[in-house]
């Protein structure tokens, strides 16, 4: 985010304290962002919380019930399979393509940008409907393979942006030519020169795709449904069966999202330090 560097108001400002309306706005924002999430955390460990302001007691029973729910292990496994497979397929298609476009085919960049913005313009239900209609034959019809294709399309921009930013930050053309003049072939260039240099972007993109796909509900439920039940499907099912257990599932899902976000931030900060280090080395 470029605005972080270009907002030095605070540093120079005479009054170092935020004004009343600023505190009110930010306070409102924090209230809106945290109250639903924190309430769900508390609800998941509350024995009963529908008659009083604070819970009547605390228990871990609902986590026990969540973990022992039939399907719990298999849905978690399915979610992991789907997320990891999507990350791998996405890496395979996006990283070489982003590299190629930046280095050899800058003319194709606008077209790639359009292809990357397209998923935002297609509602997930519409994508699901279209894919189900076209691929109505075995072995693709309503299969996890079709689902992987769908979620790769849907999560494409999340992989492309960080990778493409990382590629833009280094001079791939010069690096490629230098390596090639020393006798490296294109695969060696990618493996030994380009990928190590854009690792931060690749990691951020992979984590973003992982988090997005892990929480994906629409495509999964509409394309494969009960045949390949993932964690979000189990969660929605439980919102109708048992609210407390559903809260425990929600907490698990929020916690994973927070952890992955922290990891992305951490990777990003690592990336920044290496960037300044290379600048200093020059």
């Amino acid at each position, binding site marked *: *985010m470029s*605005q*972080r560097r*270009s*907002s030095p*108001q605070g540093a120079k*400002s005479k009054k170092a304290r935020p004004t009343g309306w*600023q505190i009110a706005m930010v306070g*409102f*924002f924090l209230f809106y*962002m945290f*109250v*639903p*999430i924190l*309430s769900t955390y508390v609800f998941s460990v509350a024995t009963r*919380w*529908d*008659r*009083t*302001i604070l819970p009547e007691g605390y228990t871990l029973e609902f986590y026990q019930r969540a973990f022992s729910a039939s399907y719990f292990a298999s849905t978690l496994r399915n979610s992991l399979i789907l997320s990891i497979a999507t990350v791998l397929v996405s890496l395979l*298609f996006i990283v*070489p*393509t982003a590299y*190629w*476009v930046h280095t050899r*085919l800058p003319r*194709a960049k606008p077209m790639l940008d359009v*292809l990357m*913005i397209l998923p935002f*313009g*297609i*509602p*997930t*239900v*519409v*994508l*699901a*409907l*279209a*894919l189900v*209609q*076209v691929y109505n034959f075995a072995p693709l019809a309503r299969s996890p393979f079709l689902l992987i*294709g769908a979620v*790769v*399309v849907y999560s494409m921009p999340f992989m492309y942006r960080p990778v493409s930013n990382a590629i833009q930050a280094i001079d791939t053309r010069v690096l490629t030519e230098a390596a090639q003049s020393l006798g490296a072939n294109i695969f060696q260039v990618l493996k030994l020169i380009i990928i190590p240099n854009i690792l931060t972007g690749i990691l951020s993109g992979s984590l973003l795709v992982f*988090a*997005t796909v892990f929480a994906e*509900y*629409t495509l999964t439920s*509409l394309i494969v449904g009960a045949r390949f039940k993932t964690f*979000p499907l189990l969660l*929605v099912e439980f*919102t109708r069966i048992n609210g407390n257990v*559903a809260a425990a*599932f*929600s907490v698990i*899902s*929020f916690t994973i*999202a927070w952890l992955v*976000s922290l990891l992305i931030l951490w990777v990003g900060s690592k990336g920044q330090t290496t960037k300044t280090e290379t600048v200093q080395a020059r």
Partner: protein
Amino acid sequence: MAATRTTKRKAPDWLGLAPFLLFCLAFEIVPIIFLLRGSFIEKSTQQLTLQNYLDLQRPIYINSFVNSIKISGISALVGVLLGTLIGYAIYRWPSRRVQDTLISLSDVTTNFAGAPLAFSFIVILGMNGVITQFLLQYLNYELYPKFSIYSFSGLTLAYIYFQLPLMVLLILPAFAGIKKEWEESAQSLGADTFQFWWRIGIPILTPSLIAGLTLLFANAFGAYATAYTLVQAKLSLVTLQIGYMIAGEVRQNQAVGMAMAVISLVIMGLSIWIYQMSTRRARRWSKA
């Protein structure tokens, strides 16, 4: 693709893109073309027809478009207004660390859509929700049955949850584009704060505000999981209707679903297009 044949010299360069383009073709372009074609075809006779679109005049479909447009419009408008104010408060916040934390928070929470979020809103604003109880016991205010989390107003509150941080992220670079010197020059020429914002600030922000409005609109229009978890059959929305048709829960002509999908594609496409145009305009200022 045609370039591969016409200009031999460039062939290897274009070939490098082939795997990715084929993938997009298979999972993005071809399905959408099929959808478009299918929406104009009468299923039993395989003849071209407009009937699928005419069928959308039934009240249930009209209703779902009205509801979808209304909820997307309202949540986008509220998101833009509040998000801009919050964004400005963050932009002017004296501590860099607080700014960074709030930006990171927005990054995370804007992705908190879907089932877990919808369930969180049931926890706080459901019939026995935390806030519902608080209002009842401390302020003696009965939220139900006037309000319900399972209704239009409830769903709007849940949508605003992911709209707010998205707008904050969108508007912050726009504030950075308003140079401090401009404000100072305006002041030295005798303009007060209101005049500065009315004549300079808001016109500079306008492309970003339009971009925000259209992106947030599209964001809400395409949402499905949150609505599915919260309102289901209680409120008819375009995405929910299409979902029912795929799942086969309603015995409807699938072609009507395709027509519905095509219209929502047009609505989304227009929004994203205006969004793109406005961001391009907005970037002019942040570069200056």
